[in-house]
């Protein structure tokens, strides 16, 4: 296979070359064959299942669902248009952004899937390892390469991990799925401590990266905060060390019970010390030269990423200040939906996919096309999907914000609620998912409506609300300041409330406050919990802080108080 001339690179994402494109096409043809062998009976459904899962194809309640990988959350405007096309042609005109920065299509036909994968491959996209017991899509900071507090752009290493984990011969039939997140900022925006492996990068000598490695975190049935395995992993050992961790897990992780098969259970069973000893023994025994990540390799991958060419936009800061003074609604949006940028005169914009009464993370084809156009116009043709189910434009001139906000507002994408109570994370729930006990979407919509008043949300301030339709916790309810867990109560859908979860550097696991209630009772109970906070808080205290200071008791009393 000859090297093609260097393709024009997109800002923020790895540019494929002929070898990468050939690989994706071969993978599509492989799956086309597998579908044929399933139809002919050469493969049983049991044998076909992991093969389709490793191409992102799930069988849900009513149809197949296809989960497309968005590596470290970055898509180009043209890729977004491809996603819009797939939604329009093969689905019901919308897609759903997930907590792993991916996109799901919920109404897919099995026989269309090879063609869809082929369309994706043409746009340098795929659905490889978005499911199955393998290394999943590596997630990263939605403000990577932009955030003012960033030490190191984690996307280059995320791409290195994506390539290394792609069709890894040894780690594609692990005991259970394996999720890696990587951040290059002092502030942990990737929930590193809630991943099988969380990597926090910092700069070491000669500007090369050094990683803090967390292991064994996760939510699901057994929520666990990850523990620090290494403090000072040099860049050149990144691949070797992850190989060592995965080998220990593949050899000794439990395979007798899928609910006890994640690496967190192995780490707990062995104890951190013994687990670390096993990893170190493997690391010492392995042929590290084979896996050494040389600076030239890092540089070669980095060279495939285009970086934005910024203009002198510093005058925009004053202009923005003047605009926010005259338009309070705009000011509120700027306050909640923008994030400080490394470059003067620029900021990152989070576009809310959570309008009042809407379905968290759902975006129509028309909105996807609009987002693509806005990315081209305002942010170097680059978009990011966040693990909080929103969309980020990474590099927007401050003097363009007003115009951008007006377009967004006119198209249902201008909600000023990032980090607030209606910026709800919810799993698909019983509307789609065969595992769910309860529907997550209707209660999310009711809560979104209940708290839709902008002034009320501003008053409440920072509050994370997460909803899972079952104990598998895809809505990360344990990590929400307020969490809602759907359960089956004698054949009826019901909801438990958890309080006190958090996913940052001070990660904590929310605790259930009492017995399950109906959907409407739960919505009312949450309103009373929020009222209790507003009454009890000290000046400047966020919800989670009041929660930690007072404990669950006053909130529990409020939740179960009957009017």
């Amino acid at each position, binding site marked *: *296979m000859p*090297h093609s001339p260097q393709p024009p690179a997109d800002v923020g994402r790895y540019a494929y*070359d002929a*070898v990468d494109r*050939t*690989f994706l096409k*071969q*993978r599509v*043809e*492989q799956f086309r*064959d*597998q579908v044929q*062998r399933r139809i002919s009976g*050469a*493969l049983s459904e049991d*044998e076909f299942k*992991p*093969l389709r899962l490793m191409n992102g194809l799930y069988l849900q309640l009513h149809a197949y669902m296809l989960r497309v990988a968005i590596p470290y959350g970055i898509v180009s405007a043209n890729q977004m248009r491809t996603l819009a096309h797939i939604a329009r042609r093969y689905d019901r005109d919308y897609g759903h952004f997930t907590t792993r920065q991916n996109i799901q299509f919920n109404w897919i036909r099995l026989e269309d899937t090879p063609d869809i994968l082929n369309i994706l491959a043409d746009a340098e996209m795929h659905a490889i390892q978005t499911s199955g*017991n393998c290394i999943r899509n590596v997630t990263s900071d939605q403000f990577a390469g932009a955030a003012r507090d960033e030490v190191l752009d984690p996307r280059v290493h995320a791409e*290195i991990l994506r*390539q*290394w*984990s*792609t*069709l*890894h*011969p*040894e*780690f*594609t*039939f*692990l005991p259970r799925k394996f999720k890696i997140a990587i951040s290059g900022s002092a502030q942990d925006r990737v929930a590193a401590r809630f991943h099988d492996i969380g990597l926090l990068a910092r700069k070491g000598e000669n500007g090369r990266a050094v990683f803090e490695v967390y292991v064994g975190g996760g939510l699901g049935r057994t929520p666990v905060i990850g523990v620090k395995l290494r403090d000072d992993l040099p860049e050149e050992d990144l*691949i070797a060390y992850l190989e060592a961790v995965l*080998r220990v897990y*593949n*050899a000794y992780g439990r*395979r007798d019970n899928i609910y006890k098969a994640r690496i967190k259970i192995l780490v707990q069973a062995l104890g951190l010390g013994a687990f670390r000893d096993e990893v170190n023994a493997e690391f010492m*025994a*392995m*042929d590290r030269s*084979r*896996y050494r990540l040389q600076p030239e*390799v890092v540089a*070669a*991958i980095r060279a495939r990423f285009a970086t934005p060419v910024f203009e002198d936009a510093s005058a925009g800061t004053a202009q923005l200040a003047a605009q926010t003074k005259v338009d309070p609604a705009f000011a509120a949006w700027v306050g909640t939906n923008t994030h400080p940028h490394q470059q003067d005169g620029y900021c990152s914009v989070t576009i809310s996919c959570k309008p009042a009464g809407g379905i968290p993370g759902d975006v129509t084809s028309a909105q996807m096309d609009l987002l693509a156009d806005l990315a081209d116009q305002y942010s170097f043709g680059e978009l990011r999907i966040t693990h909080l189910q929103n969309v980020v434009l990474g590099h927007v001139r401050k003097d363009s914000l007003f115009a951008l906000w007006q377009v967004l507002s006119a198209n249902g994408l201008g909600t000023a609620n990032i980090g607030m109570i209606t910026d709800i994370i919810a799993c698909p729930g019983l509307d789609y998912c065969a595992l769910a006990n309860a529907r997550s979407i209707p209660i999310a919509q009711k809560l979104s409506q209940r708290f839709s008043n902008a002034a009320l949300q501003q008053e409440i301030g920072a509050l994370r609300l997460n909803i899972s339709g079952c104990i598998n916790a895809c809505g990360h309810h344990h990590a929400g300041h307020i969490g809602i867990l759907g359960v089956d109560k004698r054949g009826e859908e019901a909801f438990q409330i958890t309080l006190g979860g958090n996913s940052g550097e001070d990660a904590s696991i929310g605790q259930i406050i009492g017995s399950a209630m109906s959907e409407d009772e739960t919505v009312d109970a949450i309103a009373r919990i929020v009222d209790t906070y507003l009454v009890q808080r000290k000046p400047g205290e966020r919800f989670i802080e009041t929660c930690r200071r007072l404990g669950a008791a006053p909130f529990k009393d409020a939740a179960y108080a009957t009017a």
Partner: protein
Amino acid sequence: MPLLENGQIVQDGWTLVEDGQPLPDGDILLPLSRLSEGLGRNGKGRLGIVLKPDERVSDLKEALPRLDLVSLNFPIFRDGRAFTQARSLREHLHFAGAVRVTGHFLPDQYEFLLRCGVSQLVIPEQSDLAVWQQAHERITVAYQPSVLNERPEGFAFRRFLTP
């Protein structure tokens, strides 16, 4: 059952000896528990050991220079422990003999098995060799090194998987 090696069906000259059976002459495959017994049977044929998925490859370390075959097992194709066992036989213990897999695995896993150092596969009767061959040739590039030390493609960790 047919034995696949280097893309061909070959004659399997090995005799699997169960617990409690006397040791015959010729090439024999023994469970790990009978390793020392097998090693004591000097000069009567080659020796191979069957390693269960939960047995440690390192337990073979001393004996390995005197073994010609290690046989690994897939209780079900989703149980991927044999991948790690095979790879560590090759990478850590530099085992140059045959690494065999038995049990339930799929043609779709063939390339992974080869790249972890497996050299012999016991496949079901009536298997269509073309399906295995196609699985081997389907994908021509890999994104990580393996114990086969395939030819670097020239960029990052990419390797050529030319048959």
